[in-house]
Structure formats: C-alpha cells, structure tokens
C-alpha cells in the first residue's frame, strides 16, 4: 500500500526555480511516468520526493509525511546509473537494500537474509551472486539494482530513466521485470523516461513536465500527442496506434533542417 501525494513541490537552487508547484497523486499499484525534454526538472522532482534535495510543499505517503529511514522502508530508488563500487559482490550489494530496516548497532536477522535471498531469486541472480557488481553488463546491473529495491521491501518504486543505455531486448526485459514486480506486489511505480513509446505502453498515467512545471497529466493517449511533443520537445513526431491499442512514437525527418541542408548544396 502506497499512495503518494505530491502537493505543490517547489525546488529552488541559487535563485533558480527548478521545480515549480508540482502537484499530483500516484494511487497504490499505479504506474506514473514523468516525461519531458532534457532540463525539464524530472530528476530534481524525483530527488525532492526522495528527500534528497531541499524543497517546499509536501510529499505525503498514504496521507502522512515520512522521511529518513521510515521513508526508505517505504520507497526504493533506482537511479539512472546506480553506483557500482568495484569489488563489491552482487550479494553484498543486494544486502544493502536492508539498510533502512537495521538499527545503528543492529545486524541482519534471519528475516533480513531471507529477504535478500528472495530478492536474488526473484531477479534470477543466483548465479551472479558472487560476481563483482562492477563487472556486470548494463542489463545485469539493472536487474541487480532492482533486486536491491526488492530486498528493501518498499511499496513505492521510484526509477530514473530505467532503460537508459540498454539495448532494445534488455529494455523490454527490464520493463517486464518492473511491471511483473508491480503486479505481484501491488507496487506503486513512478518513473522518468526518455523513450516515449515505452512510456506510453507501460504507464497508467503520463505527466509531461517542462520548465519545472506540470504541463499535462493524463493517459498516454492524452499526453503523448504530436502537438504536445512538438511544442515541448521541439520534435516532429508521428504517433500511431497499433492493433493492440499501443501507441508508437516515431520521429519524422525534420522538414526545415533537411530542406536548408539541401538548399545549401
């Protein structure tokens, strides 16, 4: 159970407003994706929700404000490029997911080890358990980062660009893993994404962000439109719907740029 309610989050750094009165609700079990061009403030918004950056406004989990260890027991974070310390074994890395469940002088209980072993099993990492995290491929690394989040036993998963740097097969694999976890454990998922097709296909709700503000919030069909994408990304795209009802965003060859190149010739 985790219903997140963001109430007018504003982040100001050195007089610059990076996130401006951003408000939304993410109901339990839903998948909300934040899209927007580079510099829109997506990652800053995520960092505010995690309490990693000073903000004004409120972030409520099931109606209550939580922070520190209590927040980490409820919310797991998978950054865009998770730190992979050289020499750290996969199993030790996944064990770090238990951090918010331990007291300062505490040590892992049987319960903690069971959670770690289950996370390794769920992400099918048994064979990689003794590998050095720094030696993993991109797809393996994302699975290991997700396993750490599973070991954390959080009910809300916050992901920053979970498919960045992965090939198309690994992208689909990681998305399927996250969606499987969400369904099996009623997780609430909040993610930022650059790939609009994937965003449109996996999300219950899509939020378009630009200049630190929420521009539009709704279903993928409402938000991922050629007009909105054109206006906020400065891109020419076609959005087509396949027979399964899935949206596909296809970049079109830019007319103006192409033409001027031709004219110069």
């Amino acid at each position: 159970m985790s219903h997140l309610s963001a109430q007018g989050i504003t982040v100001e750094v050195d007089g610059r407003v990076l996130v401006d009165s951003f408000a939304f609700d993410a109901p339990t079990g839903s998948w909300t994706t934040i899209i927007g061009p580079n510099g829109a403030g997506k990652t800053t918004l995520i960092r505010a929700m995690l309490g990693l950056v000073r903000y004004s406004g409120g972030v409520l989990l099931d109606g209550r404000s939580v922070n520190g260890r209590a927040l980490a027991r409820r919310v797991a974070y998978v950054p865009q490029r998770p730190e992979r310390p050289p020499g750290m074994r996969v199993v030790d890395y996944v064990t770090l997911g238990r951090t918010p469940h331990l007291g300062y002088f505490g040590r892992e209980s049987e319960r903690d080890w069971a959670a770690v072993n289950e996370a390794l099993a769920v992400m099918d990492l048994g064979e990689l358990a003794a590998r050095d995290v720094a030696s993993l491929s991109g797809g393996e690394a994302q699975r290991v980062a997700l396993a750490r989040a599973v070991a954390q036993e959080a009910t809300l998963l916050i992901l920053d660009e979970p498919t960045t740097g992965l090939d198309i097969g690994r992208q689909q694999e990681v998305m399927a893993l996250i969606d499987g976890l969400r369904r099996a454990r009623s997780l609430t998922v909040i993610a930022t994404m650059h790939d609009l097709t994937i965003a449109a296909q996996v999300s219950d709700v899509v939020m378009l962000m630009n200049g630190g503000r929420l521009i539009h919030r709704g279903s993928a069909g409402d938000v991922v439109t050629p007009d909105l994408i054109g206006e906020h990304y400065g891109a020419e795209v076609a959005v087509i719907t396949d027979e399964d009802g899935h949206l596909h965003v296809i970049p079109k060859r830019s007319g103006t740029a192409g033409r001027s190149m031709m004219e110069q010739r």
Partner: protein
Amino acid sequence: MTSHPSRLPARWVVTASALVAIAAAVGVMVGPASLTVGNIIGAVGDRWLGIEATVPLTPAQDAILWDIRLPRVVLGMIVGGGLAVSGAAYQGVFRNPLADPFLLGVAAGAGLGATIGIVFGLDRALLPLLAFVGAVAGVSAAYLLGFSLRTGRSAGALLLAGVAVAAFLTAVQTYLQQLNSDALRDVYSWILGRLSTTGWREVVLVLPYVAIGIAVLLASRRWLDVLALGDEEASALGLDVGKTRTVVIAAATLVTAASVAVSGLIAFVGIIVPHILRLLVGTSYRRLIPLSILGGGAFLALADVLARSIQQPAELPIGVVTAFIGAPFFALVLRTSGRQP
C-alpha cells in the same frame, strides 16, 4: 549460495588471529637477551594459569619479558591495529583508497603539538598529551572549515579543508623548528615514529581511546559499505550520511590521535594494511574493519622486531621500517594480484 552470504568468514578471523599470535611470540622472543618458545610458554603458564614452569625464568628474564618486551609488543599491536583500522575507515568515508588516517590534519596537528612541547622544553611526559590535543584540534579545524564551505558536508569539501589546515599547521611547525634548530633532531626523531615504552605506561595511556574508537568503527562497518554507493543512494537507503560520516571520522581520529601521541607519525600502516586485505578478502568493510585491526597489529609488531634488530644496539625509526618493507611488498601484491586494488 549460503543463507548468510555477507558475514565475515571464520577462516579469515582464525588466520589473522594466528598471525597476531605469531607476531606476539616473535616480538617477545627476539632481542639482545633471547627467550625461547619454551621460556615463554612456561612463563605464561606460570603467571596466567598457575602452572609451575619446569625451568623458571631468571629474575632478569622475567623483567625483560613482562616489563620490557611484552608492553612494547602490545603497544605495537594497539598502534598498528589502530592506524590500520582508521585508514580503512577514512578510505570508506572518503570513498578513496588513497585516503589515510593522517588526512584532515591529524599528523600536522600532532606534529605541531609535539614540536611545541620539544622546543619549549616541556616535560617529556606531556608530549603524548600535546600531540593528542594537536591532532584533535587539527581535525576539528578541518571539519569546521569544511562545514563552512558552500559545498557543505560533502566529502570533497572536507578533504580540501583538511589539505588547507594541514598545510597551515605544518608551516607553523616548520617555523617553530627553524627558530629552535637545536631541537631539530628531537623533533625529527619524533616525526619518524618509534615504539619505546616505559613499562605499561603508554599502553594504559592509549588503550581507552583506541578501544572506544575501534568499538565505534566496528559498529559502523556495515554503513561504510552503504557509503560506497555515494551520498545520494546512501541517503535514499535511509542512512544519515552526514551523521555517519561525522561519527566515523570522530572515532577514527580518536584512534589515530591516541596512536600517534605515543608512537609519533608511523607512516604507511593505514594505507598498506587495508590495501593488502582488500586484495585478499575483497572490498567489503564488514571484513576490512575487523581484519585491519588484527592485520595492522601483527604488521606493526613484526616491523618493530626489525626496527630493533637490524642495527643493534641502535634502533631504526619504525616509520622507516614500515615504509621500507611496506612499499616493495605492496608493489609485489599489486603486481601478482589480478584483482582491482
């Protein structure tokens, strides 16, 4: 896969403890008046277990064992274990394998404290106190300066502050030294480090500080692994990064300051011991912290044996020995190991 995958394997603790026992035995046996293994077993059985030795020690041998060699070996182990574990802790906090316990002005502060004591001709018994106060003051200054920087509590800001404070304190120390060139030799010998004892006095002096600091570092070892993920991910896992860093630095500083107060600036132990252990047992601080205590203790006790036997009856400064054997050994380990340092 075992169900408790991250725990410290017992075989490593046993191996390291055996090394400590061997170092202790060699440490008490070697010297101008040699003692045999039989002498030592007999004497220990007699004193601790109440079993009468078949060949009792002469009163002179008894005094050499209990009042001269053993205190020195124990002090070497406390200082060596303390410097090594502080080094490992600093490396964890700063996420930098080259960090050492003398960072942040411990060495410069202790050096200045001791120099003040020497050039002003104060009672030698006050030197440890002055060095300790100087070391703690040096780190405190670096910490306050680091906090006041715009980058706030970051590890990088602290390191830069440490560099500035260390440079300043060293300049003051050098100036004092130049004004009192007759004290140069004494200051220099203090800086190179030595383990000379007057009975158990030094051991009693440092043990409480080192014990408290080491207890805190042992309790913090799992958090150092969390810090390896960087401030942001560690915070997202619910760790109070600023508080943890302060607690670990304070504990490591207490241990280092107490160690250098009685032994001078023994170089290299805080870097070489954790490094060798990393190559052997991996990078997890759950293993490095406890094994650094044992490994550092054994290393310094053995280095001291060399320091007092190479140029008999004179003694080499132990800091020279740790660097002289440490550096090539370190290079050898780096070359022969396929693992990342």
